[in-house]
């Protein structure tokens, strides 16, 4: 018997019970489609989060005060930690292979200009922001270099803030009041959008020293470092650590490289995708039980037919192949329709809800298809064995 004939017979049988086959395949359709939709969302979120985190560039290292240990209280409760200072940042910036250093303080303050006022995020930063965070200055210029220790009262506005405060007039050179101090606007940044829910455009940048004063702080919250991309992260990490230990006398800081962060983020997000795929897998399992049920019923319904086939010369293996093929045809039809349905749903989501990050995960789609084949085989094997084992004479007599 030729394979084409086996498949053809199986196909004819499957379509001869239209409603029953459709309902059985529907289980597979839903299972495969849900795997595709769920993994697409997982993959989309993955890509979304990673781009959010890499939009500042990738050759970044952040230094935070305090050492994360598994024992004891955090540095914030008992202050044995020597905080990070602007001087630390300057000194780090002079290291070999460090291109720029940025001491960062963040807070919230009231901004006033003429009659308008608004509360917004104030970022105390250095001159290196455009370089390190990859944000361009749209108009004017950014804070001047070499004024870290004793800076003048300059401010640079985010795109949205500039539009809110000055509308159509140019903010360049205008005076604004931040908190209790007066600042002169040096420039306006380009539009950057949101980053993990934080609006980068609704901000004002002022020198770090001014921000420390304004928020009444001794130390910066974080020092961002941009390093030469042709060097080893490990070596630079070591350099930084050595320098700060020399300055502080102990290791009371944490160094987080963008690499590390992306890697751990990546593995978390991969697990997320896997978890939603497993959820979809449950519905696939249910679909396969449907095929198992229908094939079991099919065998007991067609005992006399099996007897006839055996009488006119079908060997056991042929009967086995016939019934296995029927299960396979059912699951492949269900699988293929499911894949198309899944892709269709994903594309519709993209079209109708553009904000929701979805991305077709082809790896998972291929896996889903292979799984649908496997399910066909697994769900078909037991009934097919049962069919093949029937004794021809007894099978013929049943009816």
């Amino acid at each position: 018997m030729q394979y084409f004939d086996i498949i053809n017979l199986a196909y004819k049988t499957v379509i001869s019970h239209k409603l029953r086959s459709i309902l059985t395949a529907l289980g597979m359709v839903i299972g495969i489609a849900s795997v595709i939709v769920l993994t697409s969302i997982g993959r989309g979120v993955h890509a979304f989060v990673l781009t959010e985190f890499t939009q500042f560039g990738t050759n970044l290292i952040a230094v935070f005060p305090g050492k994360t240990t598994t024992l004891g209280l955090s540095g914030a409760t008992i202050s044995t930690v020597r905080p990070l200072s602007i001087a630390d940042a300057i000194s780090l910036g002079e290291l070999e292979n460090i291109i720029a250093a940025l001491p960062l303080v963040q807070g919230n303050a009231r901004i006033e200009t003429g009659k308008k006022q608004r509360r917004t995020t104030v970022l105390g930063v250095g001159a290196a922001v455009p370089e390190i965070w990859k944000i361009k200055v749209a108009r004017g210029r950014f804070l001047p270099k070499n004024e870290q220790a004793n800076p003048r009262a300059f401010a640079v506005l985010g795109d949205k803030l500039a539009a809110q405060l000055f509308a159509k007039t140019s903010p360049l050179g205008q005076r604004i009041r931040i908190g209790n101090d007066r600042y002169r606007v040096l420039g306006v940044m380009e539009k950057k959008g949101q980053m993990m829910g934080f609006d980068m455009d609704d901000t004002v940048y002022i020198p770090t020293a001014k921000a420390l004063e304004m928020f009444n702080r001794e130390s910066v919250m974080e020092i961002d470092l941009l390093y030469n991309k042709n060097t080893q992260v490990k070596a630079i990490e070591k350099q930084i650590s050595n320098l700060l230990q020399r300055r502080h006398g102990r290791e009371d800081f944490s160094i987080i490289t963008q690499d590390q962060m992306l890697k751990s983020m990546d593995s978390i997000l991969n697990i997320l995708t896997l978890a939603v795929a497993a959820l979809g897998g449950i519905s696939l399992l249910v679909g396969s039980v449907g095929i198992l049920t229908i094939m079991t019923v099919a065998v007991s319904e067609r005992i006399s037919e099996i007897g006839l086939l055996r009488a006119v010369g079908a060997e056991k293996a042929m009967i086995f192949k016939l019934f296995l093929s029927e299960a396979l045809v059912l699951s492949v039809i269900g699988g293929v329709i499911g894949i198309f349905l899944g892709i269709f749903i994903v594309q519709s989501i993209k079209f109708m809800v553009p904000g929701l990050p979805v991305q077709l995960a082809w790896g998972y789609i291929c896996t889903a298809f292979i799984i649908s084949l496997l399910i066909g085989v697994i769900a078909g094997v037991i009934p097919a064995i049962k069919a093949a084992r029937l004794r021809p004479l007894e099978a013929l007599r049943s009816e």
Partner: protein
Amino acid sequence: MIELESIHRIFQVGEQQVHALNNINLTIKKGEYVSIMGPSGSGKSTLLNVISLLDQPSSGKYTLNNQVVTELNDDQLAQIRRKNIGFIFQFFHLIARYSAAENIEIPMILAGIPVKERKLRVEEALVDVGLQSRAYHRPDQLSGGQIQRVAIARAIIMRPQILLADEPTGNLDRRSGEEIIELIESLNQKKMTLVMITHDEILGCRAQRRIRLVDGKITQL
């Protein structure tokens, strides 16, 4: 071509042993027309099942075309049935979802005959049984007589030497029964060995050779 030597067939029914065939010795030559008659429970179906290789005797020796078939395994028997034996059943045994032509084609599909030849032979067979115009009808669109004609076409499609008929008219009205018998007999005239089981005395007497079974024994050859 069919040689049965001291064939016994014993069934275990609960505690009891039923001796369905008791020392059967029978030789059927090529091209013969044999009828097997007897009351129900006499073992005629069991005899036919043994001859048709659907059942194995408990003891004895069966030689088919000079080949001892009593020791063969399941799959080997299936292959011999496919090549040598055509079945005609009382209850037709057509597959309801397939058309007449597809039903006739099945043995050839199992034998792996190429599609082209299959189509040709199905057409010929439909002409032989006078159903050219019914090729694409399904069994539920055919009359009893027509269904049995399809079954006969299926039985002869592999050009077997032996045709086994188990009460072929048992489920048909008189008129179509007669037509079917004539069709089967015409096949016998084309040198096909014909073995037929029947209750019907008149029908049985049409055969050149009549075998009568009572309680698993041949009483008349």
